[in-house]
């Protein structure tokens, strides 16, 4: 069996290649990154398949026994994300070959981001998670700044300041958890925390959740997001939209489920539900008021991650499966949408909702793809966007959380209001319907969009599969064990 450490080591070590090689020979960055990512994808699929088919794949780095050493784990909860990271990276890479940026250093950052995000997904050590959070954070700050526009540097700096505050708050929470228990291992924390004096556990939970909420960009901790996504090169925006907040939300979910269940449940649930509700409502409102399509999509993420958080708060097996499905689905749909935005900016020089008017006639296929992605984001069946929401709503009803269920269901209408605006403009808006294209796009760019559109449709029925995978892991959870970790 493959050591999950390879999943982290391959992209991190491989990241040296593009930066170094492109100094020796120009334009070697992309193929080298492709090679590393192909290896990574094979490893990811292999490990994930093994983890989903049988027992979770785990390892203790350097053979130091748990809970003293750092453990890595690929189980049913992390496996989908490991695969998502690898495959999304490949798809967006296809896009960036022409869509740019193309410097060797950029591809080094690209691989570092992938390595960092994978690390966040597989580690079972809360401090180790911080380190990977910072690797992926630094890489994304650099990638946002890669755009030529001056606004990109300011957006990147804002992203850096807010992102670092988030990561540091998380670190502060780790400090509290450690002081309260003397351990950093998730399973050991789970075992020790109920015994810990309450305010410390609550502070640890509160700070870690707050920190990760900044990374997820829940309202009102979202301010970095629209600027960063709007200023970043389209490929970067797509990659970050697919992965950055998704992985942070995964980490949030893992902590809530595997480390902190039982810690001041009522207060925490109410607070998180409030945060989620604020995100859903405010995100939708901000999206509705955005003129730039990229910003609109960035704000829409607030609402979508609010829904995911609802699933983790409800925390029935159905709701958790829903959150996982919605995270994966949202990653695919949002990344695809950003790729379309980049594509259209390139081929038709359009960026705002007003400029999108009449695009369906000028660019019918890309518009149709965008329509599918948008309908998915709204939550129309049979797309994956519907499946995730439905599972979360169903879980909320099972658990009797009527507010949560109403929120998730109502979010469909919010989505309709802000995304319907764009679709209406594209399809029946009065616009310049005859202007020709202003630039060309590569087959790779179209292919990446097509992959996202097809995945949006194909993943619609993935729910039962995810539910089945998660069942054994969640059974352990009910039995009071830390997720996937043998006591």
């Amino acid at each position, binding site marked *: 069996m493959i050591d999950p450490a390879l999943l982290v080591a391959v992209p991190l070590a491989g990241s040296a290649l593009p930066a170094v090689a492109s100094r020796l020979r120009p334009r070697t960055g992309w193929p080298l990154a492709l090679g590393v990512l192909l290896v990574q994808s094979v490893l990811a699929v292999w490990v994930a398949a093994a983890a989903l088919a049988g027992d979770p794949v785990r390892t203790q*780095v350097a053979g130091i026994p748990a809970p003293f050493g750092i453990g890595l784990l690929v189980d049913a909860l992390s496996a989908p994300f490991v695969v998502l990271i690898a495959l999304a990276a490949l798809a967006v890479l296809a896009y960036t070959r022409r869509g740019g940026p193309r410097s060797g250093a950029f591809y*080094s950052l690209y691989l*570092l981001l992938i390595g960092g995000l994978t690390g966040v997904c597989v580690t079972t050590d809360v401090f180790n998670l911080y*380190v990977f959070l910072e690797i992926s954070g630094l890489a994304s700050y650099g990638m946002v700044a890669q755009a030529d526009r001056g606004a990109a540097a300011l957006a990147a700096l804002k992203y850096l300041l807010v992102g670092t505050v988030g990561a540091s708050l998380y670190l502060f929470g780790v400090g509290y958890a450690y002081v309260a228990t003397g351990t950093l291992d998730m399973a050991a924390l789970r075992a020790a925390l109920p015994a810990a004096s309450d*305010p410390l556990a609550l502070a640890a939970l509160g700070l870690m959740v707050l920190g990760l909420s900044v990374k997820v960009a829940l309202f009102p901790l979202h301010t970095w997001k629209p600027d960063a996504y709007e200023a970043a090169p389209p490929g970067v925006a797509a990659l970050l939209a697919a992965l950055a907040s998704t992985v942070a939300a995964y980490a949030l979910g893992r902590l809530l489920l595997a480390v902190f269940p039982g810690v001041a449940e009522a207060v925490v649930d109410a607070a998180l539900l409030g945060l989620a509700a604020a995100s859903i409502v405010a995100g939708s409102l901000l999206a509705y008021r955005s003129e730039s399509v990229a910003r609109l999509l960035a704000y829409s993420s607030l609402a979508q991650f609010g829904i995911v958080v609802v699933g983790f708060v409800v925390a029935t097996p159905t709701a958790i499966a829903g959150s996982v499905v919605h995270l994966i689905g949202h990653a695919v749909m949002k990344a695809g949408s950003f790729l379309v935005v980049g594509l259209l900016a390139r081929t038709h020089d359009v960026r705002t909702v007003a400029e999108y008017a009449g695009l369906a006639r000028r660019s019918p296929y890309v518009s149709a793809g965008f329509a599918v992605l948008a309908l998915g984001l709204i939550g129309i069946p049979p797309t994956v966007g519907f499946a995730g929401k439905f599972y979360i709503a169903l879980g909320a009803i099972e658990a009797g959380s009527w507010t949560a269920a109403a929120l998730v269901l109502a979010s469909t209408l919010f989505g309709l209001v802000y995304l319907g605006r764009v679709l209406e403009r594209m399809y029946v808006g009065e616009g310049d319907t005859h202007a020709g294209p202003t630039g060309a796009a590569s087959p790779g760019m179209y292919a990446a969009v097509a992959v996202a559109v097809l995945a949006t449709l194909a993943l619609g029925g993935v729910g039962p599969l995810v539910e089945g995978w998660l069942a054994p892991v969640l059974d352990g959870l009910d039995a009071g064990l830390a997720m996937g970790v043998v006591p």
Partner: protein
Amino acid sequence: MTPLVAALLAFVVAVAVVTALARDVLVATVAFAAYSLGLAVLWVVFDAPDVALTEAAVGAGVVTALFVAVLSRTTRPVGGRSFSLSVSPTVVIVVGALTAALVATVPSLPAVGDPDAPAFDGAAAYYLQETGAYGIDNAVTAVLVVFRGFDTFGEIAVVFTAVVAVLVVRGRGDA
């Protein structure tokens, strides 16, 4: 709680306040350097010589040098009062709320230096006990390279990421 610690803490907080209020960023940077040195001394007092060394070299040294280098390439505000005392009420409320919540947890924290604190059990005890087996005397080094070597691998990656990111930001990544 020795008077030395109390004095150091008072110094550190005071310098941090100066850093916060100074309108001239060069003054703020110098105050920050003093702040880092104060922390380094504090680390020594808290029996963390390795952290102290790093803080002195990296925190007070490298970071201050970086700030000065940046300031020398950019402008800094001149004129007006030396200290700015106006803070927006929102900031006061938000930061105040966070601080108050954190202060509320302080009584629950184990007393400083309490040998019965949970932190001294578990992993720490294991590390101290096993360090000898690896032929390393300094437990900090042992944890760094052996027990939590994966963190250190990540740390190297962080530094590399920062180097590449700086290259990209400075526009020198295009090769």
